């Protein structure tokens, strides 16, 4: 089984970047264009890890984390948040909501894969 990634980001550019890197590295890539869609797609995709943007329409990244953590079955899925700032308080807030880790945009392939490895054990 490939490691399944559900990426949630409203930016097509970021989605394409993630898709390119992850598919290249052998992950199974799924994506949603906003938080609401991401949460809705979650049960169908049943990913091994979720990567979510913070600023999104309909439901933001914090909302995504809260909703996924709120339902028992999803409580343990690793969730990585994508942030543009390396601001500590943003990370603290994401973690407070239940995020597993974070990826700072702009990311390079290696750091993305390294982050995924630390939360899923999967390596490129």
């Amino acid at each position, binding site marked *: 089984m490939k490691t399944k990634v559900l990426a949630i980001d409203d930016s097509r550019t970021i989605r394409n970047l993630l898709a390119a890197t992850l598919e290249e590295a052998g992950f199974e*890539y799924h994506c949603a264009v906003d938080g609401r869609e991401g949460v809705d797609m979650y049960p169908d995709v049943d990913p091994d890890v979720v990567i979510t943007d913070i600023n999104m329409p309909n439901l933001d990244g914090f909302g995504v984390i809260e909703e996924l953590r709120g339902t*028992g079955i999803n409580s343990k899925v690793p969730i990585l948040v994508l942030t543009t700032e390396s601001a500590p308080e943003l990370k603290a807030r994401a*973690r407070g909501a239940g995020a597993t880790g974070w990826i700072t945009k702009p990311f390079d392939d*290696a750091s993305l894969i390294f982050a995924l*490895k630390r939360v899923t*054990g999967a390596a490129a």
Partner: protein
Amino acid sequence: MSGSIQDTFFEECEELLEATDEGLTAIEGGDHDPEVVNAIFRAVHSIKGGAGAFGLDDLVAFAHRFETVFDEVRSNRLDLDPKLIQLLLRSSDHLSALVEVARDGGEVDEAHHDTLLAALDEYIPEEEEDLTFEPMGLGGPAAAPEVIVPQEETYRIRFHPLKEMYGTGNEPFFLFQALKDMGELTVTLDENELPGFDSMDVSDSYLAWDLVLVTKEPRSIVEAVFEFVEGLCELSIDGDGDAEAEANALAALDAMFSAPPVEAALPDPAPDTAADSASAPFEPPAPAPEPEAKPAAAEDKASAPKAESGKQEQRSGPKPTLRVELERVDRLINAVGELIINHSMLAQQIANLNVSDTRDVETELEGFKNLARDIQEGVMAIRAQPVKPLFQRMARIVREASAATEKTCKLVNEGENTEVDKTVIERLSDPLTHILRNAVDHGIEKPEDREAAGKSRIGEIRLSASHRSGSVCIEIKDDGAGVNRPRVKQIAIEKGLIPENAELTDAEIDNLLFAPGFSTAKEVSNLSGRGVGMDVVKNAVTGLGGRINISSTPGKGSTFTIILPLTLAVMDGMVVSVADQTMVVPITSIVETMRGSDDMINSLGADGTLLSIRGNFVPICDVAGGLGLYRESDQQAGVYLLVETETGQRCALAVDDIHDQRQVVIKSLDGVCGEIPGVAAATILGDGKIAMILDPESIIAASPTAAAFDTERRMSNAS
């Protein structure tokens, strides 16, 4: 990072910039809905995020500043006063400019850039300003520049997760896995803290691990593995003889995560993990084989999932779209055009067969025709796009023009979702820009003059688009002073466009604006003029097969109306014969057709003739003569097409015969020959022959009878 992703970025930027513009326009219009503000924040934020990925530092820096101000607005720490709104609008324009420079190259207006940055900074509180945007590496293997000669080192790691860690989805197991990839790892479970079964709190964390890692990776990488769990665990990392350095590093990390500890309202703190680990303790080099197998399995299928995930990407969009090269669509459009021509050829061949009963074939042929039309409409629809982006760009033009002329104007857009052929939209940009600059420059009065005239200080320009009986109608309406007719007339006389004693109707004076050589630009300002007059606008519109009208009321304002065909590729035409040639006249210009008799024709002067239609006299314009063609047969031009020009002038085009009305595929004569007076384009008829598509407007303009009669009419109007 392939170019195609960068293309995606620029495409997305266009959309995001539109969204920003749209939001700001709404805010300018008084809509301060938090969601509008949020949407702009997100759009700018996304531009920043994408720009960062491609190392577009100028863009990132500016977007960041812009976004930070919006964050202040979003958090209600800043009021959206008019001054700030103007700054945001200008910043949005500048952001567009930066995107353009990033995409197409060119120079950024440094001074303008710095002015805006400084202006934005004034709205950003001190401490926020310090929060500079600096991409921080994740400490992945790629981010280890400090190591030059990798040397093996042994780290002793004590790792004791707090219960909070399990609420974040972090698994010790995976962390160990990551460590193991770096070198040789020994894991020992310390379950000494496990209380007796009775006193065990399932939500607490009792397990700790002692790890020994021998690796060539530098300390920073080892620490980076625990980045996500810092503050969620007790962690110590002892390198060989670097106790001091380690203490410092940990202190620094602690400082970094001085955030309040995570509260215990975490659902399901994963007691099962603890239990599982306890019952199946790690054996060095422990981690279960399953996760190890993952990468291998993943590699096997590495190439397989592309199609699937591509599908996913499409499915996940709110409205699935497909991006195709324009050239492919155009090829399809050409092919469908040929198909339609092919149909008429086939129909003609069948008619020539002399078969008595062709009803069955004709039924099928009719079906063929309908299908071809369906395909054609479908293909044309692909090229159709809403005018919204075009209109939004115009808001910027009006802002710039207002700033340059020290006037205050707002642009109100209507019917933005009206869809028009892509080429039409592209070619409308310049004419619209010119008309709008003109409207701000010459139409809208200075604020104090407006006030004196009892109008609002802010001038309003309304830009609207709508579909009107098979055409697209674009209207530009300002509430300014209207055309200064005495001045226009005087200029026209000075420039020799009309005789000094000419008596013109108001409409005729207004239409002088479109006359070649008439440009009031020079003496008024350098803004709208730029060396071209409204005649260029008119040419651009007629070049698209459209027409433009102006109407104006002194003191109330002017309205420009542009009527355009829905598509550039086909049109409805009347097929006629002129001097043994088959030609096509656009249906849109024909008011009525009639066969003339001798008693309807009246002479005027030496060779002018007028056609009397129900008591009205209309000049006759011989098409063959106008085109410089001579009849070889003795057929006379006995059929008249009554046409009306933009100025409302009517004229009867005399042709030899009328055949039928049909849709024809327009073939441009660009590159085939130069401009031919009286001819707009060509088409290919059913028999494979080429026919000229006529331009009645220019035929009439060149006709001496029509011109003479027109002058006479003006005179009689005046008296």
